[in-house]
């Protein structure tokens, strides 16, 4: 029994395993950041990345300078910044949705060519609402 436990404990995570874990989480967040079409989805991915960064602080603190607690303090700062970011981000998305009827970032390209891609809320919203209805229907039909 103890033999088994010992062999299990041999796989105890060290600093590198912990860092690898956060790298994986960060990469997944990066993937989401680059591929998600919905702005809220992008924010979710950003949260993942922030989270893995905060975790890194604590990991380094725990393994590299266990006599201090700076990592925890920094993690608290990261959490606070994440909270602020989400608040502002969500407010922007809600306002954006109200104004343009969508939070699809593929449509947020007024920077590219303001004349052809943005004609004003009404015309735009009709199109978008039709799109939403169509999708809603198709989603519930199958």
């Amino acid at each position, binding site marked *: 029994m103890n033999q088994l436990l010992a062999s299990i404990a041999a796989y105890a995570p060290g600093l590198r395993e912990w860092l690898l874990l956060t790298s994986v989480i960060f990469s997944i967040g990066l993937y989401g950041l*680059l591929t998600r079409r919905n702005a809220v989805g992008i924010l979710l991915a950003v949260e993942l990345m922030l989270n893995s960064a905060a975790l890194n602080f604590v990991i380094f603190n725990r393994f590299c300078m266990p006599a201090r607690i700076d990592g925890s303090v920094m993690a608290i700062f990261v959490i606070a910044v994440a909270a602020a970011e989400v608040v502002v981000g969500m407010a922007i998305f809600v306002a954006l949705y109200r104004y343009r009827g969508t939070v699809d970032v593929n449509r947020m*390209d*007024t920077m590219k060519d303001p004349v052809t891609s943005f004609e004003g809320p009404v015309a735009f919203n009709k199109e978008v609402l039709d799109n939403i209805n169509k999708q809603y229907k198709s989603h519930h039909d199958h």
Partner: protein
Amino acid sequence: MTTEIDIQHLGFALRHVWLVPAFPLVSFVLVGLFLRPLSQKLCGIVATLAVFSSWMAACGIACEYYTLCPPGGEHPVLVPWAFEWLRYQPGMTVNVGVIVDPISVLLMLVVTTVSTLVHLYSIGYMKGDTGFGRFFAYLNLFTFSMLGLVAAPNILQMYVFWELVGVSSFLLIGFYYQKPSAVAASKKAFIVTRFADLGFLVGVLTLGYFGYTLFGGAAPAITARTAAHCAMPLQPFDFLYLTSPEFLARFGALAAGSTGITLLTVAMVLVFMGAAGKSAMFPLHIWLPDAMEGPTPVSALIHAATMVVAGVYLVARMFPAFAVSGAALLVVAYVGAFTSLFAAVIGTTQDDIKRVLAFSTLSQLGYMMLALGVATMESPLGYTASMFHLFTHACFKALLFLGAGAVIHAVHSNEIWDMGGLRKKMPITHFTFLIATLAISGFWPLSGFFSKDEILAAALGNGHYGIFAVALFVAGLTAFYMFRIYLVTFWGEHRTDKASHAHEIPAVMWIPLAILAVLSVVAGYVPMAKFVSIGAEHAEHHGINFAIAIPATLAALLGTGTALLLYTGSGSRADAIARSLGGVYTLVKKKFYVDEVYLFVTHRLIFNLVSRPIAWFDRTVVDGGVNVSGWATRASGHLFSWMQTGQVQSYGSWYAAGAMLVLLVLWAALI
């Protein structure tokens, strides 16, 4: 005998010399920024009181200075107050301060006196004008700049205030900016004086450069001599240093290339170019007659009594350097003499009262210049005479201009032929104008007699017989043209309705006239030689030298007689003479076509031969180059515009990929 002076223990006025320019500056800011929208009356009162306070401070300085250094003794240069303004490097610092010596005290008194009276006069003259507050703000700015110029202890400060004076003159000439002629005149004045100041600047830089390189050798002796008189250590730009024999001896020995001319002469001629521009010496005189577009008080203050004498003051300030150069001093003398004659001749034919006075001013400035030009360090009578004439001229010329302003105010015209018969309508104006005319014509016992007398004596005494003859002739011409406008304006019949309905001016305007009239009478009795002198020897105040006084008076009488002959009764005799002179008369009447020559040179020659090729070069080559770079930027932007999808995520992809690339490179570099 040397007066022992300790800079630490001076009287109140000398310890606070900065008050003199400070009052108008404060008033300028107050009036210009805060009081202007509030009340016209308040603006006028504050501005006038500020200048009056300056006058009192200047009086205090004069009293204390001449108590410290009694008249007749030696008059050292004091710099009782200064602060560090620019520090280029150790040993190369420019201070701002106030210099106190006889000529600066004299100029401070003249400037503040005339300025106070002109301010007072302007309260009446500008009454109801929409730009009332602006006018007084400008006047204050001018007074401040002029006092700063006068007080400058170094040539760089003088240059700065020189330009400030030019700016305020520009602003005041163009005061009626709705009038195209005023705008043109202000531009003309600005451009001409700027052109002259270019020479001045080069001169200043030359002096500064060599002053700095020669500083180590010359300065210790000067410092030892003057340390007790100066608030700050001696610097290369200081007049005390630039006019010291130690420096001039070294600088005068430097030749400019292989031309045979010394560098000192070159520098001094360049400096004189600036002085000639400001004092409107031929051929840079063309701006002054046009400057009469400004309000008449401005003409009285700036273009007769104060600013235009800045050139004379500059030459006087740098006089030892001119004297060492010699050749430069000759230039001063001949330019002055020629301008004096030239302007007097033109003055005899002009019909605009202010223009006649302007040419008269030119002529008198030429007088002052030639007086400086004939002086030497050994017999400095001309120097004293020049300052003396500057002083008396300020009084009677300001009086003349203010009187002319009163007449113009009454008749609403500048043409003397629109006036006539005003002596009964405006008795005070008439009387004061007569005094001024007599004074400028050089009749005993008025002030002009004495100062002119001294100039003639100086010219004769130093052996400049040609100049003496010219000066004598100009004295006669002066009497002629002055009596001409006096007679046409005040005697005879009313020629227009306006003239017949003219009224005497209000008290606020005639009180300055009266004060100036008194000054014009008594100014000649000031023993100027005791107060103002240069060099070790004091110029002898010789009293009335009949060998000079008699021909001068005769010349004046001759001029007066001619004027009486021609301009009393009907004007037919004058017309007849003018007709008989024919082309010569037209030549003079058109001011020798100097303006036209200038126009030809600038418009035809310079414009076609220089400006157009340069413009072509600018538009095709320079602009083309810029356009090419712009086109290249746009084209390259177009090339990469496919990267700009407008979508955050593609930007994010580029960013992340790039960041990783950088990381890899850094890593590779580290390993």
